[in-house]
């Protein structure tokens, strides 16, 4: 059945809270075994979509299907998906082992079986010796793993993760990203991952949906999203972009419309020796920011646009990178992305 139907299908999904439309006619198919990210700023509707899939909210209109079955009217306990909550939502009065065994307990699994399976699940998240502790005695990263074990021990068909790494510090977050990816590959089930962190989404996902104002602004692989953003919003939200308006586009590219160009796709040289590229333009260096592996250069183009250029630090460097010095920047036509102005939101 999994071949015929997507793991999750959203059709015309809409959720209105009072006068605010949180989710606006979202259509989406998510395949079985896919690591799917919903990326967007806060208030873009991504968490509401997740809560609708889990069943904590009822849609105003539209349907949700799991493996071809319409579950729109079903309660959360009647859906084969499980959630890892942003605040973990561990039960404070139960031990770690009881927390993990809970889903099996309410399904009527015998005490011996459920404790054995819960121990096994704790082992897979490397918390084997922590079963007797209370959640309050664990660190943030450990609680995160307990929440993962608790949600996966009942073998859901899809796992919903609501900004699960948001509360962790950078090092732990990078480590958990790797663990999440491994866990998803081992389990072979669909992960739906909500995040506002574009780097996290790019790193982990098979596909990404970029949310803005309750709608999906772009849907695609990380490379598609990053290299070929369709709108100024996506270009600016995912990574850094130089977005050129109609007027500047005319001067720089010879034709109108909205365009974007990634900072790392632009090369830089002195005015006297411009970089080898399809097109070049001249400007004045406004700022030089050293960021370790690379240097960020802010250039005021004579065409009337301030752009950001990212240069690897082992690469050719401009003179002494003096602020105020004249420079020449160059890029290849293939790296210029046409944006659709129609999708601009306020």
């Amino acid at each position, binding site marked *: 059945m999994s071949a015929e139907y997507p793991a999750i299908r959203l059709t015309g999904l809409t959720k209105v809270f009072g006068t605010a439309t949180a989710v606006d006619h979202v259509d989406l198919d998510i395949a079985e075994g896919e690591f799917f990210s919903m990326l967007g700023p806060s208030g873009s509707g991504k968490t509401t979509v997740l809560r609708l899939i889990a069943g904590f909210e009822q849609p105003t209109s539209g349907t949700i299907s799991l493996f071809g079955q319409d579950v729109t009217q079903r309660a959360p306990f009647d859906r084969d998906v499980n959630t890892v909550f942003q605040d973990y939502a561990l039960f*404070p009065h139960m031990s770690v082992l009881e927390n993990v065994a809970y889903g099996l307990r309410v399904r009527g699994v015998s005490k011996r079986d459920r404790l054995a399976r819960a121990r096994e699940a704790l082992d897979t998240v490397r918390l084997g010796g922590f079963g007797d502790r209370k959640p309050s005695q664990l660190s943030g990263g450990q609680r995160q793993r307990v929440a993962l074990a*608790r949600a996966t021990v009942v073998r859901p068909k899809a796992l919903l993760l609501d900004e699960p790494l948001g509360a962790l510090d950078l090092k732990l977050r990078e480590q958990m990203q790797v663990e999440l990816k491994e866990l998803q590959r081992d389990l072979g089930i669909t992960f739906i991952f909500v995040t506002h962190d574009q780097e996290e989404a790019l790193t982990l996902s098979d596909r990404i949906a970029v949310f803005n104002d309750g709608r999906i602004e772009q849907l695609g692989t990380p490379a598609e999203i990053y290299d070929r953003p369709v709108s100024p919003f996506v270009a600016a939200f995912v990574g850094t972009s130089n977005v050129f308006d109609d007027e500047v586009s005319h001067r720089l590219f010879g034709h109108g419309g909205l365009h974007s160009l990634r900072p790392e796709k632009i090369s830089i040289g002195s005015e006297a020796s411009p970089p080898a590229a399809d097109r070049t333009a001249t400007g004045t260096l406004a700022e030089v920011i050293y960021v370790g592996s690379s240097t960020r250069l802010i250039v005021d183009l004579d065409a009337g646009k301030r752009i950001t250029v990212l240069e690897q630090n082992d690469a050719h460097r401009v003179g002494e990178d003096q602020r105020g010095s004249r420079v020449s920047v160059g890029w290849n036509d293939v790296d210029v992305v046409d944006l659709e102005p129609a999708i601009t939101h306020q």
Partner: protein
Amino acid sequence: MRLSRAARGILGGLTVLVLAGIYLPLFVVFVNSFSTSTSLSWPPPGFTLEWWAKAFRSEGALDALVTSVQIASVSTLIALVLGTLISLALQRYSFFGREAVSLLVILPIALPGIITGIALNNAFRTILGVQLSIYTVIVAHATFCIVTVFNNVIARLRRLGTSIEDASADLGAGLWTTFRLITFPQLRSALFAGGLLAFALSFDEIIVTTFTAGAGVKTLPLWILDNLFRPNQAPVVNVIAVVLVIVSIIPIYIAQRIAGAEKIVR
């Protein structure tokens, strides 16, 4: 914050004064329960255990005690069930008239007892045509006992949030299972505190009781009021009072211990 010597002296003196204002009269009651004087004259002319023996043989006092415990227990039980249900309804669901219901639930504790008493008396006898009995007292007490349970439980529910209940539902538990295994254990100490207060409120209630008690229903406060000014009974009343003080210290102590233990866990 550092206080000057004078300020510390004044504040300390005031504290002693206020505590003395509360506890000296209780101490006088305690001493008088051993006094040989039947008119509570001070200082006591001599000491005796006669009143203690008499009190424990006084059927009127013991019956009244049993009646009071029965009324307080049943009305507390009703308050626990109804108070929890109304808290869940008002905190977890939104519906038309929610704010109004919330106000109406709290109101009985603010209403003067004499108003509640007369209103219930009237409702029971003339409108419902019910004979006043111990049951009418229980219903009357439950109206204000609910408030203490409600206040405690709704505050706890608000602090608890809904995410652990969501998690429980997400893991496959139905509404009742979620309440039994997740919500109720988190409410237990709030229920205990609210129930304790409800019990105490009912136990020393006198005005509403007067208006809603059937003939022959005598609670301990009513019995004390009846006997206080009767010749030769005053020292027995003192004995009962001392016993009540000792009995009420125990639950307060337990409640404080529970509150203290919870703070450490959190």
